[in-house]
């Protein structure tokens, strides 16, 4: 299992590096831009906080983008939230199905290793790369704060990064389950899932009737503006996340073990 895990990490390392550096550097660039925009921000902040549904959707009604904390939550929060979710989806959606899609399954599964061990190795690979992705991005963001000599709101920042990690794991688990069923690449579907969750959360914060059902989507507990403004998160959102992760992962193990593998 260790050999398969290490090979999977190696095979996915390039994609991991591209996504971590891209999202991390974009976040860092956003933070560094704050300094040059700081003067204008004060005027913009009032305008952005009074734009009704738009301000609610992007959290600008609760946080001022004139402060680095508010700016980070609204701008970098969006970049990291979307980038991380897309990376998690892309990574997990093909990790099992690619063996059949690229016809390498006959080689891998003729080796003395059970399907469960293969699923476990690939699942651990996804989790490890998502943790590393979060750490690398966090280092970029911290570097931005240090460079601007601004105080990092450590508690909120740590909470944001951990919840984003949980969100990425939830999206990855869903995609992992789909990958166990499919023998073909579903990259488009993976990206679609990440974007649908994002849009669902955006709409849910604007449409009053949907607010009670926000907990279904993973962005409910990982919303940067809520975390940085100290809004309490619905516990059901976390319960749903844990349930989704467990069910999707167990489903992947059971289904992959029972089905025929295509040549």
């Amino acid at each position, binding site marked *: 299992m260790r050999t398969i895990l290490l090979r999977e990490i190696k095979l996915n390392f390039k994609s991991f590096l591209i996504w971590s550096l891209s999202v991390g550097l974009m976040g860092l660039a956003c933070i560094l831009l704050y300094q040059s925009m700081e003067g204008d921000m004060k005027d913009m902040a009032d305008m952005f906080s009074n734009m009704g549904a738009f301000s609610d959707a992007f959290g600008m009604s609760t946080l001022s983008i004139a402060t680095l904390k508010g700016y980070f939550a609204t701008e970098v929060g969006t970049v990291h939230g979307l980038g991380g979710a897309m990376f998690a989806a892309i990574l997990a959606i093909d990790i099992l199905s690619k063996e059949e899609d690229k016809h390498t*399954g006959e080689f891998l599964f*003729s080796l*003395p*290793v059970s399907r469960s061990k293969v699923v476990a190795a690939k699942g651990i690979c996804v989790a490890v790369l998502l943790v590393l992705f979060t750490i690398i991005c966090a280092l970029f963001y911290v570097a931005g704060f240090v460079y601007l000599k601004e105080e990092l709101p450590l508690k909120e920042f740590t909470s944001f990064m951990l919840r984003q990690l949980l969100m990425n794991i939830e999206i990855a688990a869903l995609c992992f389950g789909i990958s166990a069923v499919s023998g073909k690449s579903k990259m488009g579907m993976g990206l679609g899932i990440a974007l649908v969750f994002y849009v669902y959360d955006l709409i849910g914060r604007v449409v009053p009737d949907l607010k009670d059902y926000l907990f279904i989507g993973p962005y409910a507990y990982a919303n940067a503006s809520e975390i940085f403004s100290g809004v309490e998160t619905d516990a059901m959102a976390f319960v749903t996340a844990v349930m989704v992760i467990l069910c999707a992962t167990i489903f992947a193990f059971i289904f992959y073990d029972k*089905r025929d*593998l295509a*040549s």
Partner: protein
Amino acid sequence: MKNVVEIQNLTKSYGKNRGVIDVSLTIEEGDIFGFIGPNGAGKSTTIRSMLGFLKINSGSIKILEMDSVKDHEKILENVGYMPSESWFYTSMKVKDVIKYAADVRKMDCSAEAEKLCERLKVDVNKRIKELSYGNRKKVSIVCAMQHRPRLFIFDEPTGGLDPLMQRTFFNLIDEYVNEGATCLLSTHVLSEVNKYCRHGAIMREGRLSMLDSVLIDEDEFIRFYEE
């Protein structure tokens, strides 16, 4: 002689589509067993069921006196399989693929792999994506043989190999079989059955019949495909 393969009343279907029906087959230790039949007759389904790629509907498969479902991993430790299409991870180098297969088996097969690569003229420093079909087949042979398994399963192994490599391949099989291994060879090539196999069976429309003799002439061989 011990039975290395014992299949009893194997039935496998793909939904409403036929796979194999009530197949029973026994292969003794030290045999080179020819497995012939038209495309879609069920040869690959039988082989893929033996290796656990497919979940069988009914019947039982025993390999090396072990149950193919319960002892799946243990069986694969002693089996060398070469699929008809030899696909590997394209970005990997040949030497890494060969070592990867050995590492998953938790074995040091470097000496045997080196010998095989030398005899089959495998360039281990090339990447898989740079290899022709025939050269990918040779990598597949090395991966199937380097751990010196007790049972070889080859699914149309010589497609893409030049005549010299075909001869080297069969020489290798002979050597391993003389040392106690057993070989199941699925093929469409009559000369391979005549020359190398000791027993054989034909599959037609999902059903298996044993051949009385592997010494069959071309007309009879073609009839297997026509009927």
